[in-house]
């Protein structure tokens, strides 16, 4: 079995069947405890009625009463190949921030499209978000095939729409699969009802995705905190990319001075020579004091700047206006910020550019902006080192937007 688990987010328009699919997937792979199944059956309205598989994920009373997902839920299951973390996202525009929260953790996505409805507003919006977040492993599931008697013609006509809608936002689906989430056709098992379809089942599609590899990149070590351990100053943080070596000379950004790594520390481990990407460590350096927000680097130099160009997705319920005070947060760095210029803004549900040189950004819109920071920060382009190329904007302590550095 593969070592790392793969995180998959389930997205799509309201009621297209996301939660039902997850429930079914768990049930058909034997990952649902029997008494949990009984609980869901009872909550679905007792004997005789059909089982509402969406209840596996929609656990809040409000969610079940309204028949919608409000917040993301994570669930776990595994195949012979690997472990999965499945993130069920809500489809309502109102809960977009929750959908983005879930998607920010994912490496691949399943997009549901109801065959009777085709591509809708949130189908487009969610695709656009996936594209911005760099999630390029996407399988589209054309759901509720049972309603159209598993018709190949119906599937073919929707398939064309999906392809053109997705290519508009730069998403190139790995598969487009006809399914019935409620009946389980093509979910875990190939279905005779869909014998004309030659592609994979949902489960096979998942297993064909790959975990994002750990490429050999330049070192980025943002300082998280400084601990005083019996008089020694220990700098703690996580290696966001590359690797850290004992004895190596590193650059301290944003200042740009150099320092030498004297020691790498971890509890209950002695004599550490190297720390790899993702490791939380402590380091002692030979010269000078450090503070949170500084970044230790080697090799390729990051961008050091007081101004950044980025795509931002506005998650707050209130629109952005020019007087709004913002705080920019990227890794452990933080700076007061202002959006200086909106180069263009668009509504991802339609993809048409609404306005160039705009003066506002409305809820759920995406904009290309120039952000001015009160001090210099250290960043990389998202396409080069994703960990250093993404950020959050807060207003009065509330996260209002996410951003990707271009």
């Amino acid at each position: 079995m593969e070592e790392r688990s793969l995180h998959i987010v389930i997205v799509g328009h309201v009621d297209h069947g996301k939660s039902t699919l997850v429930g079914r997937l768990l049930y058909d792979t034997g990952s649902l405890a029997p008494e949990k199944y009984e609980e869901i059956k009872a909550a679905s309205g007792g004997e005789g009625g059909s089982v509402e598989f969406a209840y596996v994920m929609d656990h809040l009373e409000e969610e079940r009463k309204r028949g919608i997902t409000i917040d993301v839920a994570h669930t776990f299951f595994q195949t012979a190949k690997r472990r999965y973390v499945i993130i069920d996202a809500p489809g309502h525009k109102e809960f977009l921030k929750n959908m983005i929260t879930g998607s920010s953790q994912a490496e691949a996505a399943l997009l549901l499209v109801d065959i009777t409805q085709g591509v809708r507003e949130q189908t487009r919006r969610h695709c656009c978000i996936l594209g911005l977040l760099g999630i390029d492993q996407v399988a589209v599931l054309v759901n509720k095939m049972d309603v159209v008697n598993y018709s190949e013609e119906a599937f073919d006509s929707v398939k064309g729409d999906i392809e053109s809608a997705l290519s508009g936002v730069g998403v190139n689906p790995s598969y487009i699969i006809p399914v019935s989430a409620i009946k389980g056709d093509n979910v875990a098992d190939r279905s005779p009802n869909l014998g004309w379809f030659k592609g994979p089942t949902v489960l096979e599609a998942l297993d064909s995705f790959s975990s994002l590899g750990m490429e050999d990149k330049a070192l980025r070590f943002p300082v998280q905190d400084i601990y005083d351990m019996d008089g020694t100053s220990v700098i703690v943080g996580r290696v966001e990319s590359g690797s850290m070596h004992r004895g190596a000379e590193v650059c301290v950004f944003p200042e740009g001075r150099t320092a030498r790594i004297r020691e790498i520390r971890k509890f209950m481990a002695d004599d550490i020579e190297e720390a790899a990407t993702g490791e939380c460590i402590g380091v002692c350096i030979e010269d000078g004091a450090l503070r949170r927000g500084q970044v230790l680097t080697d090799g390729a130099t990051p961008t050091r700047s007081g101004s950044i160009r980025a795509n931002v997705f506005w998650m707050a319920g209130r629109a952005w206006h020019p007087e709004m005070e913002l705080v920019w947060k990227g890794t452990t760095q933080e700076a007061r910020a202002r959006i200086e210029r909106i180069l263009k803004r668009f509504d991802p549900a339609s993809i048409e550019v609404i306005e160039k040189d705009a003066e506002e950004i409305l809820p759920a819109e995406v904009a290309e902006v120039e952000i001015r920071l009160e001090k210099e920060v250290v960043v990389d382009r998202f396409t080069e080192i994703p960990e250093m190329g993404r950020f959050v904007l807060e207003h009065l302590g509330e996260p209002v937007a996410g951003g990707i550095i271009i």
Partner: protein
Amino acid sequence: MDHLTALENKSIFIIREAYYRFRNIAVLWSIGKDSTTLLWHCRKAFFGKIPFPVLHIDTGYKFPEIYRYRDRYAKEWGLDLIVARNEEKIRSGMGPDKGSKLECCTELKTNALKAAIARHGFKAILLGIRRDEHGIRAKERVFSPRDGDFKWNYEDQPAELWDNYKSTTHEEDHYRIHPILHMTELDVWNYVKREEIPIIELYSSKEGKRYRSIGCQPCCSPIESRARTVDEIIEELTTTKTSERAGRAQDKEDAYTMQKLRSLGYM
């Protein structure tokens, strides 16, 4: 990086982030396998010396083994242990058989925690809950704000992108921090095995029964099991289908008991 190391690093990052953001924090230790795993991560995060208190909520109904284990390791690991009890209610005889279980949990656990937070002015509490334990916990954030009345506003949780956590507080608020939210029950046992974390004997089978989840004695029932060692427990979990909290009374009363408890500030 292997699976368990990746989970551990994620947890350590969160613990250090919480300590940086709030400084005045505490970790809740129920003595079970999850909170002991969390405590282990805290020891790793701070190179063996946890710089904040470890809080144990004592309902007076805990298993005797729990007290013995607690006092032994508190000493061995040099913990700054705080025991919180709702003395008034314990003395008045509050229990799961008097009134509802919901009321008992609220008084002896939630309100005891409330009082401890108020007394020590903690701005954040680290908790070892996991997403796979319960459908409601599957919806939690890593940094989860609670208002002065302890209410969890589950219908409008803050966005949480990548590892950027909302951390602003008002006077009365506090945060629940969930560093091991992403671990499953099996992950925890595999981790306990790898790290050789000492685990309370209640989890091991005695006369054909063992506890899979432990809390207060009257509200926990053991499961049929022959698993005595950690290896045998892992073996049992990979073949069993029943869920972990099947022996816990809070989860049974009705489908939404847990939601009600949690919205009032229960763990």
